[in-house]
């Protein structure tokens, strides 16, 4: 049951492969960019997931976002994540 006083908080979860894990998509794109003579040092692919969470407080919402990111959105063996606050419109 969602109570009236709950507010919505927005977060962006940025997921990328951990350092040292081979990123074939990034490596392939890197090779093509180098072939085209761009002075690129590295290319890493990631994904961005936006969450809107209803909670009493910002802290509680951020905890939920962290929990979702850790338990569901990523596999901590392979991936790192970062949570960024989204400013509400």
């Amino acid at each position, binding site marked *: 049951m969602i109570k009236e006083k709950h507010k919505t908080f927005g977060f962006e979860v940025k997921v990328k492969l951990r350092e040292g894990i081979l990123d074939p*998509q990034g490596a392939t*794109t890197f090779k093509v960019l180098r072939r085209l003579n761009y002075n690129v040092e590295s290319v890493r692919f990631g994904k961005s997931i936006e969450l809107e969470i209803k909670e009493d407080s910002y802290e509680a919402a951020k905890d939920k976002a962290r929990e979702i990111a850790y338990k569901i959105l990523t596999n901590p063996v392979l991936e790192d994540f970062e949570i960024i606050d989204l400013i509400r419109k």
Partner: protein
Amino acid sequence: MKNGNLLTAGIIVFPGSNCDRDAYFALTINGFNVKYIWHDFNQLLDFDLVFIPGGFSYGDYLRVGALARFSPVMSSVEKYILNKRGLVLGVCNGFQILTEAGVLPGVLTVNTSHRFICKDVEVEIINFDTPFINNVQKKILTLPIAHKEGRYIVIDNKLDPTNIVLKYKENPNGSFDDVAGIVNEGYNVFGLMPHPERACHSVLGSEDGNYIFQSIRRYLTGAESINN
């Protein structure tokens, strides 16, 4: 043009192409002298037909066809097209590469169903004026499709209707205007999602793909066309 028996075709092979051998088979049984062209060289393409086959060039990374478009051979293909040296046929991933290269208008993206579709479909011929089709005597062809990114999209619906060559009878992927295959303005580049090279022998269940190869053949040998 050239004597009929000497027609040559080049099949471009990218890392990840997987319909190159089917294309080789189909072109050979239709009387072409066929060669594979590795994508890594910028070379003079001296063929009557250049075939860009299906598959997953560069693993379909970034976007389908996006990285293959920068392979050295693609600048040769662009010169070949500009000089009207011969015809270019891009099937499936080949079609995607040609749109990424800007040779053909529009773009191909994920099917509305978000599923990989692999089945035979009926396509209707809309424009009989191109070399690829003008010797086809049927109006409807049965051809196999096998793609996840086959939904044709064009910005602001800007597509000259005369560029549309094939339309699906029953749109499988959500393509704009049921588009299954289009040509460029010069009518020398044809891109299509269905695989004619997988329908070129009775053991494959359909021989309708041969209508396209035979049409190309008749055009290149300067034979009189049936429809014009």
